[in-house]
């Protein structure tokens, strides 16, 4: 069964149509990279799937559950969107860590706030809080930052900040993890350490969607690549298929420009 399904998704800002009928679905454990030139709608697609923008029309299902449907008026209220967003995890280009909290606190904050809504929170307060802490510590260990748990974001390098952001997104056990150009703000050295973490996640069969400009990485790590142009999916296939496709003019132009 598809873990993420996007049907006929449209999004306009005023008169500009940014997404023009996006259709795709992906299976659990799949790693999908979205490539395309600036302005092709990659980031808007990601933001729509993560409820940061409300699509103009279409349908989105995550984990078999419909989270957005323009015809059923689903996914418009804040309560709907909250449930929807909890099924996703998103890693931003600019990290967006909370500067006043340490790395560990950044990872623990959302799970702790969410735990307060659990029915057994009052009785098992201590235990729940301890579990969240343990989980956060193991996530930070997984991204290789066990020695930085009490550092504040301003004391960390860009790559370290982005790894904390990945741990933070994983802390809510999302069904699908999204990356919005996770390395665009990093120099090559720091890019490598972030990509290593994403690669390790791919090995654990985490379902991921990665919007990226790192072609080599996309080719190495993904099971599938989507090429977007002018708000539409112009090519969709395995990395080998997409990178060797010579019939698609837009794709050839895009890949040609990158190689130069």
């Amino acid at each position, binding site marked *: 069964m598809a873990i993420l399904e996007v049907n006929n998704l449209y999004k306009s800002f005023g008169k500009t149509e940014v997404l023009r009928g996006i259709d795709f679905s992906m299976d659990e454990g799949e790693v999908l990279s979205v490539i395309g030139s600036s302005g092709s709608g990659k980031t808007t697609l990601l933001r729509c799937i993560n409820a940061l923008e409300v699509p103009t029309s279409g349908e989105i299902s995550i984990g078999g559950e419909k989270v957005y449907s323009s015809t059923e008026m689903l996914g418009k209220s804040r309560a709907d969107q909250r449930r929807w967003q909890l099924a996703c995890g998103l890693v931003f280009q600019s990290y967006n860590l909370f500067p006043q909290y340490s790395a560990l606190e950044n990872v623990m*904050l959302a799970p702790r706030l969410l735990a307060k809504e659990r029915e057994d929170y009052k009785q098992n307060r201590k235990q729940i809080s301890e579990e969240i802490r343990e989980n956060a510590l193991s996530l930070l260990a997984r991204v290789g930052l066990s020695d930085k748990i009490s550092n504040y974001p301003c004391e960390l390098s860009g790559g370290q900040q982005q790894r904390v952001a990945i741990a*933070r997104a994983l802390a809510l056990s999302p069904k699908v993890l999204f990356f919005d150009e996770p390395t665009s703000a990093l120099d090559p050295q720091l890019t490598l350490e972030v990509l290593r973490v994403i690669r390790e996640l791919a090995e654990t069969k985490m379902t991921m969607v990665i919007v990226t400009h790192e072609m080599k990485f996309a080719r190495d790590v993904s099971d599938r690549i989507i090429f977007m142009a002018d708000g539409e999916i112009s090519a969709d296939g395995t990395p080998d298929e997409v990178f060797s496709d010579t019939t698609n003019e837009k794709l050839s132009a895009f890949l040609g420009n990158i190689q130069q």
Partner: protein
Amino acid sequence: MSTFEKAFRSLTEGFGENCIIFAVTLLAAIPLGLIIAFGSMSKWRPFRFFERSKKRLLRAISHVAPIRWLTRTFVWIIRGTPLMLQIFVVLYAPGLLLDIPMRSRMTAVLIAFAVNYAAYFSEIYRGGIEGISKGQYEACQVLGMTKAQAFFRVVLPQVVKRIIPPMGNEIITLVKDTSLARVVAVSEIIMCAERFTKQGLIGPLFSTAIYFLAFNGILTLLFGYIEKKLNYYRG
């Protein structure tokens, strides 16, 4: 009792009034300012559905944001007129216009001060809140936080850090402004000192500076301390 002792007692008593005005104004204006700040950032547009209308007039009406416009007009009036005048208005207007005389002159002073400072604070808050990047809100959103959680756990602490310097400035101005209460005969420190001036003694009037300097000295140290405390992170 020596003249010095008499003057000292009188001035200290007078400064007590200044301190009351200072404390009550702060306690009231800090939360009130936040409410005004929210009002001045309100995006509520009840006629939004005219946005796509073909008629230009209706399109113009669609931009009406009543809460924001009302609060901004209110802030303009409060910041655009002298506090001294506002004290008079609060003291006399209820009696003259509504036939409900103000209970005491001190009450009028406290109301005028609280409202005046709330308006100034609201603009400082607004600057602080609008300075927080959109990414912070979006990060909260995708982590499933409610609006209230995002504001109180993530945004507000950062706003506090940002507004400490301008708030310190404003609060120090407040200490000195409290002496305006004398225009409606609340016997604050300068009014007390003037009683001695009328007897030919200028010393007490000049000495009032010591009270203000001491008080503001403490405040400066306090704000420096808070700023240092919050310096553990950047951003």
